[in-house]
C-alpha cells in the first residue's frame, strides 16, 4: 500500500490505486444516524489528545494537561481537547445542588441557584484562557519538544453566562468602597483569587456555557468565572462564591504561586494580565516536513489587553519579517488565527512569529524578557517562539540569542 502512504508515487502509469480501486466506503452502506448520540472524533485522530508533560508535577491531581495545538485549526478549541490545570483534581458537581453566593460590600448577600442564573440575561463571548505558567518551563532553556508542551496551556471557547456586573448590581454592590472581588471555588482546593473591580464590572462573566453546551466538568461544570485577558487561575472553576471587598486577599495562588520572581529577589504580586503573545503551531517542534515546496505556515496570536493588531512572521531567525493574514473576526481577548505562505527550499530555516496588539505593545524576544525579568520568573513568558526546520525536515524547539 505504498501509494496509500505516499500519494505521489504512482504504482503504474494508469493512476493511483486509491482512485482506480474504489475504497470500501464508496461501495457499501454506512452507519445509522445517531450511532453515537453524542459524537466523537474519527478514530484516525486519536493521536491528538491532551497530555501531561512527564515529570512536570509530582501528582496528577495538582498538574496540567496540555492542548495539542499542533493539530488544531481556527480559533475555537475543541472542548474535548481543552487544557486542564487543577490543584486538587477536578470534580463532578451536581448542578441541582450547586449554589452561587455573593457577599461582602453589598446591600444584600445573595444566593443563586442554576435556575436563577439561567433565567437572567446572558451574554455569549469568545475568549482565550491561558495559564500564567504557560511556556514557563522555557524561561531557562529549550525544555520540551512540541508546541503542545511549550504553549498548550491555552484554549479558546465561546462562553455563555451572566455578566458579573449584573449579579453585583442585583446584590447592591457598594461601588463607593468596592475595589476588589474574591472569587472562590466549590472544589476541594476552594481555589480563591483576587480580581480587580474594574475587570469584574467590565467584561467578567459568570459562565455556564462553553462552545454551545454546558461547561465540561474539567472546566468547572456547572459554573466558572470568566475574566477575559486575565491568567487562567483567576477563572475560578466550580464557582461558589463572590465576595466584594476593599483590600486584596493575598490568597495562596497569588502569594506563594503565580508570583513572578525578579532578579533582585523580589516577587511581583497580582500580575493578572496575560500580555500579547503568538506562536506558530505548524510547522512546529516534533514535526517532520516530508518535501520541499509551498507550506501554509499557521499559528495563533492573542492579547489580554485587547485585540491582535498584526502578526509578523520571520523565516530567517528574526532578520526579516512579513505580515501574516489574520482570520476574522478578530475579537478582543480571544485567539486570532494567522496564516502566511512559505516556500521551503530544503535548507535549514528558523521560523518565528511576533504579535503587535491594539495597545501598540510588541511581543518581545526571549532575550529581551530575560534582560528585565531574569530566568526564574516562572510565569508570564510571552516570548517569541523559534522553530528550526532542519535540512532533514525535522522541526525542533530552539532558543536564540
Amino acid at each position: 500500500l505504498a501509494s496509500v502512504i505516499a500519494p505521489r508515487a504512482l504504482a503504474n502509469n494508469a493512476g493511483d490505486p486509491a482512485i482506480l480501486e474504489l475504497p470500501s466506503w464508496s461501495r457499501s452502506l454506512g452507519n445509522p444516524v445517531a450511532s453515537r448520540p453524542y459524537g466523537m472524533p474519527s478514530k484516525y485522530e486519536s493521536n491528538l489528545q491532551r497530555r501531561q508533560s512527564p515529570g512536570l508535577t509530582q501528582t496528577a491531581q495538582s498538574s496540567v494537561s496540555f492542548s495539542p495545538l499542533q493539530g488544531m485549526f481556527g480559533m475555537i478549541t475543541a472542548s474535548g481537547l481543552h487544557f486542564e490545570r487543577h490543584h486538587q483534581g477536578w470534580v463532578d458537581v451536581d448542578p441541582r445542588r450547586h449554589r452561587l453566593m455573593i457577599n461582602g460590600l453589598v446591600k444584600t448577600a445573595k444566593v443563586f441557584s442554576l435556575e436563577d442564573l439561567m433565567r437572567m440575561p446572558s451574554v455569549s463571548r469568545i475568549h482565550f484562557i491561558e495559564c500564567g505558567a504557560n511556556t514557563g518551563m522555557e524561561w531557562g532553556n529549550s525544555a520540551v519538544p512540541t508546541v503542545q508542551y511549550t504553549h498548550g496551556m491555552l484554549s479558546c471557547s465561546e462562553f455563555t453566562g451572566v455578566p458579573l456586573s449584573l449579579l453585583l448590581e442585583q446584590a447592591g454592590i457598594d461601588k463607593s468602597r468596592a475595589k476588589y472581588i474574591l472569587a472562590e471555588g466549590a472544589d476541594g482546593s476552594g481555589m480563591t483569587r483576587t480580581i480587580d473591580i474594574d475587570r469584574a464590572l467590565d467584561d467578567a462573566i459568570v459562565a455556564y456555557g462553553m462552545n454551545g453546551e454546558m461547561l465540561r466538568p474539567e472546566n468547572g461544570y456547572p459554573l466558572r468565572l470568566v475574566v477575559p485577558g486575565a491568567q487562567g487561575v483567576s477563572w475560578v472553576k466550580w464557582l461558589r462564591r463572590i465576595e466584594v471587598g476593599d483590600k486584596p486577599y493575598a490568597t495562596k495562588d497569588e502569594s506563594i504561586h503565580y508570583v513572578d520572581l525578579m532578579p533582585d529577589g523580589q516577587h511581583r504580586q497580582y500580575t493578572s494580565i496575560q500580555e500579547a503573545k503568538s506562536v506558530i503551531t505548524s510547522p512546529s517542534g516534533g514535526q517532520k516536513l516530508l518535501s520541499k515546496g509551498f507550506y501554509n505556515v499557521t499559528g495563533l496570536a492573542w492579547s489580554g489587553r485587547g485585540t491582535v493588531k498584526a502578526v509578523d512572521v520571520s523565516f530567517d531567525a528574526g532578520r526579516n519579517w512579513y505580515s501574516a493574514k489574520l482570520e476574522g473576526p478578530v475579537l478582543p481577548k480571544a485567539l486570532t488565527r494567522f496564516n502566511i505562505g512559505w516556500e521551503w527550499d530544503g535548507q535549514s530555516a528558523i521560523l518565528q512569529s511576533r504579535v503587535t496588539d491594539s495597545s501598540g505593545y510588541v511581543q518581545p524576544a526571549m532575550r529581551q524578557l530575560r534582560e528585565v525579568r531574569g530566568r526564574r520568573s516562572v510565569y508570564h513568558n510571552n516570548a517569541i517562539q523559534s522553530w528550526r526546520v532542519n535540512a532533514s525536515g525535522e522541526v525542533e524547539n530552539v532558543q536564540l540569542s
Partner: protein
Amino acid sequence: DNNKTPAAELARRESPYVLTMDALGRPATPAEVTAWDIDVRPDFAGLPPGQGSVSDGEEVWINRCASCHGDFGDSNKFFSPLVLGNITEADIASGHVAALKDPTRVRTTLMKVATVSTLWDYIRRAMPWNDPKSLSDDDVYAVLAYLLNLAYIVDGDYVLSKDNIAEVQARMPNRNGMSDDHGLWKVDGRPDVVAERCLRDCELGDKVSSSIPPFARNAHGNLRDQMRIFGPHQGINTVAESDP
C-alpha cells in the same frame, strides 16, 4: 455597540414589562454566609477565634500532614518542600529572604510567602489535600504554629492565636518581598519590556543558544504518535530515528 450597555440598562430597556429580576436569587441567611465565608485577609479580617501550640501542632502534623509533606515539611514527594532552611535571622529582620537571589537554592513556601494569613486561609480551606475542610479552627492554629516553628519563625513553646498572629506577621521572613511595581494588574498598565516592531535587517539575535539535547529526544514519548498520521505535519519517530 450592544455589548457595551451597562447590565441593568440592558435588561430594562428591552421590554415594556416590569423587569423584576430581583426575585431571582434570594437573600443569603447569616448561617449560610458563615458556612462559606471562610477567607482570611492579610489584615486578618475573617480570622476566627482560636489557638494552638507548636506541640499540639506537631501531633496534628504527624497524623494528618507528614505522610505527604514529611515530618519536617521538607519532603518533595507530593509537592515542593514547605520548609528547607534557606531562611536566616537577617531575613527575618529585613523581611526579604536573601536566598531567593541565589539560583542554586530551592525556593520553599516559607521562603516566599509574605503574609501568614495566606497560610492560615489555605490550610483551613484545602488541607489535608485528600480531606480538605476537615480541621477545626484550633487545629489550624496549631499546625500552622508547628510549620512556623519548622521555619524558625516562632519558638517551640509558641501558642499561636488570633490575638498574637499579627506579631508573627511582623517576623515573616519575606514579608517585604512582594512588589506591585508592574503593569499587569490594570488592562492599561504600562508594560515593562518594550520591543520594537522591526521588519527589515533586524538584529534580535540569530544564534541558537539552546535546543533539546539528543539524549532527551524521546523524553516526551514517541512524537510520531502525538501528531496527525497524515498531512504535511506528521511527527518525528523519536524512538526509531535519530536526526540525520
